[in-house]
């Protein structure tokens, strides 16, 4: 199955893209995706706290994903 990862701020800067399309195996969770994103970033996201959103809603615990889900790893926000 296929999901989309939206990249913002430091994640976008580290990965040099604003969107990734990833193939997942059934049973893979948001935690697995975060791991892949962090690996792809080399060390550039070391020490950066990322919150997870699935389909534009914050989720607190790792969760299973479905085909077509939109995932984002949200670095500390800075609105205002």
């Amino acid at each position: 199955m296929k999901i989309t990862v939206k990249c913002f701020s430091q994640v976008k800067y580290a990965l040099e893209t604003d969107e990734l399309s990833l193939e997942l195996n059934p049973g893979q969770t948001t935690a697995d995706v975060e791991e892949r994103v962090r690996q792809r970033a080399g060390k550039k996201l070391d020490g950066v706290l990322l919150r997870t959103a699935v389909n534009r809603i914050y989720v607190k615990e790792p969760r299973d994903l479905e085909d077509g889900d939109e995932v984002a790893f949200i670095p500390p926000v800075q609105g205002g």
Partner: protein
Amino acid sequence: MKMGMKWPLFHQSRADKVVLTEIVPAPIVPFPSDNTRREEGAELVFNGRVRGTEQGQDILALEYEHYEGMAEQELQSLADETMAKFLIQDLFCRHRVGRITIGEASLHVAIWSQHRKEGLQAMTYFIRELKERVPIWKWAILVSGERVPSECVHRD
């Protein structure tokens, strides 16, 4: 409320509360002041403006990035929550995104309440939470022209 819509006049006593949030890509048009209200004795307005330095280093401008779809949703649900939590009548918020020159407003919030105390508390809470959870980020435009996430600005 869509931009361009006629602004409601509140000269009648109202049981209904109004909460409006917008994320706009252009200079913020302030919400109009209003001297026709009978019930709200306190009007509190906050403008958050871009400062000339980021992490201690001079910048040319900030560029605000938002998670389209999610940012609007989080902002609106925060506003609804603020309305439920404090005794206020109306809350209006515009957050600008895109490139913003130093001195210009990135955030404009107006809160109307019967009494000032609740308005001040609601404003404090709303902005604090906005900075905590609404997915918006700052990119600094450095004097060199380089564009980097604001945390990645380092002193020379």
